[in-house]
């Protein structure tokens, strides 16, 4: 489609983006893939009268797109959680130490639950026995 370096970077970066099982219709990597296909396909097939202008246009595109793909890489490599690590007890909150582990377990199980077990859970939450 395009020999652009930025495009290749995009494909590599987006392929490593974590898949979201809870929101299958709204995935970041799918929407970004649509966007880059639109942008790079348009750039390569547009008819510019001036060859130099075509080069200039694509140069502007490349720089901006490389900046974007650098941001994707920075998120994939967890740059920000490593730069600002949590050293205290934020992730084992005193009011409920297993909050985050319970949440992750719940999110993993939720998409696969049957209708019946969802109803059982709903009523379990409503009626709580001490």
């Amino acid at each position, binding site marked *: 489609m395009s020999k652009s370096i930025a495009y290749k970077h995009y494909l590599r970066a987006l392929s*490593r983006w974590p898949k979201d099982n809870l929101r299958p219709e709204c995935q970041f990597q799918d929407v970004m893939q649509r966007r880059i296909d639109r942008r790079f396909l348009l750039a390569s097939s547009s008819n510019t009268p001036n060859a130099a202008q075509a080069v200039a246009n694509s140069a502007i595109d490349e720089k901006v797109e490389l900046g974007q793909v650098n941001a994707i890489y920075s998120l994939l490599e967890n740059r920000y959680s490593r730069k600002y690590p949590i050293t205290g007890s934020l992730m084992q909150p005193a009011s409920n130490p297993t909050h985050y582990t319970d949440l992750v377990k719940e999110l993993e199980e939720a998409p696969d639950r049957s209708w019946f077990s969802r109803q059982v859970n709903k009523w379990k939450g409503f009626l709580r026995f001490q």
Partner: protein
Amino acid sequence: MASKTCASCLRTLHRQSRSITPRASRLNTSRAFSSTVARPLEPNPGPNATPRTSIPPVDPARAEGGPKAQTPVSIKAAAGLKKVAGRATETYTAYGSTELLYKECAVQADYSIPQAGKDEQETPKTESGEDLGVGSGWWHTELGLQPTFSTWSQVTMLHMYLIAVRFRCFPHGNQTWQQHLLDHFFYDAENRMIVNHNMQARGTRNKYLKDMFIQWRGLLAAYDEGLVKGDAVLAAAVWRNVFKANEDVNIKDLAQIVSYMRRALKGLDSIPDETLMSAQLQFGSPKDEASVVALRSKMMDLPFEKAPGKPLPGGKKA
């Protein structure tokens, strides 16, 4: 959903909340937030000020003689009473402190509608039909989000989320504090709907408030998931909530917001409970994160042949 406190209690804790702010010099806010004195509340809001909450106004003479005229004796007496009364007074102090904390959240993407209240003028609308206002925060000017009610609510809820994460670390009273923070938000949101957007019909307002509650619950789960699973998942959650899954989002801005959230959480992690309970909190700005985002990633230099990506769901490979 709202907790019930009587009118005289509301007056008491309104006065109490004004006495909480000690005099301290403003710290240099190059951090994502800082512990500093909250802005002193002006006793006489100007003619165009929107009513902040539905709490009955404090007697102006008393408000004027607020923080500056506090005697140490009264503060000592209040502290002594708190020790004696124990946790019974916690809900009242929580109500007052969360109001200040909430105001700090709400000011981040604040906007105003100059045409509100004037019958002849039509408010300009965005493409999707929302009222378009005027705002000057980082979120409007640098990020390019439109100053609408939904932008304001999403940015405010993001900041409220950061505080809620820290509330969870209270050994007792987490529920109380979170509930009061949420109540302030919903009171203020409904106020804005009436004053700025002229929604006189209670049914319409309730519909939007219910939607916002669902958004809040979803946002809690999504951002928590991002906290645990890493920056990419957090960025996806911010993208869905704040940017409404916009295809043309600037990914550098997304990374800046994630960096800002991480820095704020690290800062919140390091402050003691009392600092938050006395509402001595001020958020910094995401604009300080631009340099971190601009750093070149090592993955840019990995050759494509040696470190290819995994096959995409559509079957394309790098």
